[in-house]
């Protein structure tokens, strides 16, 4: 019984320490300009990490003036294969929609609501840095 208590207390201490230490490390909360190409005239910015229950969403955007020319999902939720498949799908749909329409009027991808919202949140923050004059992306609520 005494060994059991020692094990429990020790492991609780170890787990708490690990989590607290991790929490004390500063995450990327603000978008940052990562690259400016003078020849092509593009500006690239990395959005902040948006935490979700299944993982993290982080988007990198490349702009030419106020036009979005490229979008890369740097991190997507990958805690399990299910959420990974869903978020890959959502990221692909959102990317093609944004690149083709360049619009604020976007539907969140059904089945990946949280991922889509986080994707747009990270994108908007990145846009602030890359192209301050570009229109903001805003999701329309699902009907």
């Amino acid at each position: 019984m005494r060994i059991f208590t020692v094990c429990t207390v020790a492991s609780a201490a170890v787990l708490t320490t690990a989590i607290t230490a991790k929490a004390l490390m500063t995450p990327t909360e603000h978008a940052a300009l990562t690259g400016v190409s003078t020849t092509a005239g593009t500006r690239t910015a990395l959005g902040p990490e948006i935490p979700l229950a299944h993982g993290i969403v982080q988007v990198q955007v490349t702009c030419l003036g106020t036009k979005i020319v490229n979008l890369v999902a740097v991190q997507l939720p990958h805690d399990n294969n299910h959420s990974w498949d869903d978020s890959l799908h959502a990221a692909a749909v959102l990317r093609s929609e944004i690149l083709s329409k360049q619009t604020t009027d976007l539907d969140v991808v059904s089945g990946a609501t949280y991922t889509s919202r986080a994707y747009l949140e990270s994108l908007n923050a990145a846009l602030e840095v890359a192209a301050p004059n570009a229109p903001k992306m805003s999701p329309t609520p699902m009907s």
Partner: protein
Amino acid sequence: MDTSPQPVAAVPGPSPSGPETTGPIYPFVRTYPNPHAKSDMEREASRPMLSRYALSVVLIVLVLGGGLEMLALWWLQTPAARVANLSEELIMAAQLTGLVGGYLLLIEVALMARLPWLERRIGSWLASLHRYLGGYLMMLLTMHVALVLTGYSLSLGAPVSTVLMGVLQTYPDVLIATIAYLLLLGLGLSSIKKFRRKLGYERWHAVHLVAYPAGVLAFGHEIAMGAQFTRNAFARDGWTLVNLAVAAAVLTHRFYLPLKRHVRHRLKISHIVAEAPDTISIYITGVDIDELNAQGGQYFRWRFLARGVWFQTHPFSLSAHPTENTLRLTVKGVGAYTRRLKRRLRPGQRVLADGPYGAFTAYLRRRRRVLLIGGGVGVTPLRAIAETLDGNERDVIFAQRASTEHDLLMVDELRRMQRQGKLTFLPVLGKRGKNPRDDPMHPARLREAIPDLREREVFICGSPGMVAATIKNLRRAGVRRTYIHSELFDF
């Protein structure tokens, strides 16, 4: 890797130097060299590099290292943004308890895989560790389940029941893992002392076998849902490999090798002898028994193929060091099973033996002078150890604890060994009584009976109560704990 003891006089068969003999039934007994009687070189060769205790510490450090590796895996795979709020922290704690719990489950199975080298060197401590870690594992797994549910319900803002149903419907792996958890929970509950007594050894043991399907069922969700494994091929392959290695060890040592041994040795009962009104000795013959490499003091798990007892296996110690074709065990009718054995066993019946197991052998001996203390049927493995101890009547004292002279076991054999000058037989008789001074095992009375008690290495075997009380008395009498070895008759 076989580090079985290879003492100098270990070659069976008559040799000029002549191994010690104990009588006509046991002609060629391997004796363990008296560590103080030989030259330094021979002594070094006969001793293991690490003592039982040191080896256990090394193994525990290795196991803890593996646990740290699981923590490191989590640390490297988790970005700092993942621990931004309470629900995230709960989910991370769930991941950690899951990782450590999965690892511990693997260790628990590996501890019971009956790896021969570990069984021979560490023996019953493996089972003790298994028991201690078992309760801790149940707590970790319960925490894992609880943390997943509360973490997700906080994060999604939905009640726990909705989250549970949602998770079970969306992820088939988790549904299977939930079944595994419920199986393990039943197993854990059956091991609580109160329930275990009620169930009895056999049913409790049968319940424990669900750990194997549970481990297999849980593995699917570790690979498919474990955030540390899904996108990290290296970690996934490594974890799969470790799991496969443990599964292979279990299949080899718990199924294949016992079956192979059975086919090879073809054990059967040759005769049964009554030692006392409620105690019988079973003599078992077979082919090439010496190749089992069993030592006096070790035990086998026996299955007697007789009506009414064939479906159960029970551990019993050898009550004599094996000869080249005979094993002997001594059984006292204390429970329903042992009484049934007495009624049902007949010469000629086949026997399946799984073993040998146990580190409680003369191999542990480091001192010249030895004291063996046996109580009840615990005398039997000590009787077998005494056969393999090299020494004279001054070196080896065999104390047998009993309340009256009629309760003494194997008196004839012990007296014969005394006549041959192998040991001194010392019956310790009398009730424990109310006054501590009446206890025949009182430290002062022990010192009186055995003046050089402090220079002796002590081997104790008996019921848990008797062993605990004897260790306490010996410690009070000044024997150092490292020189006390004990084996419990308990499950």
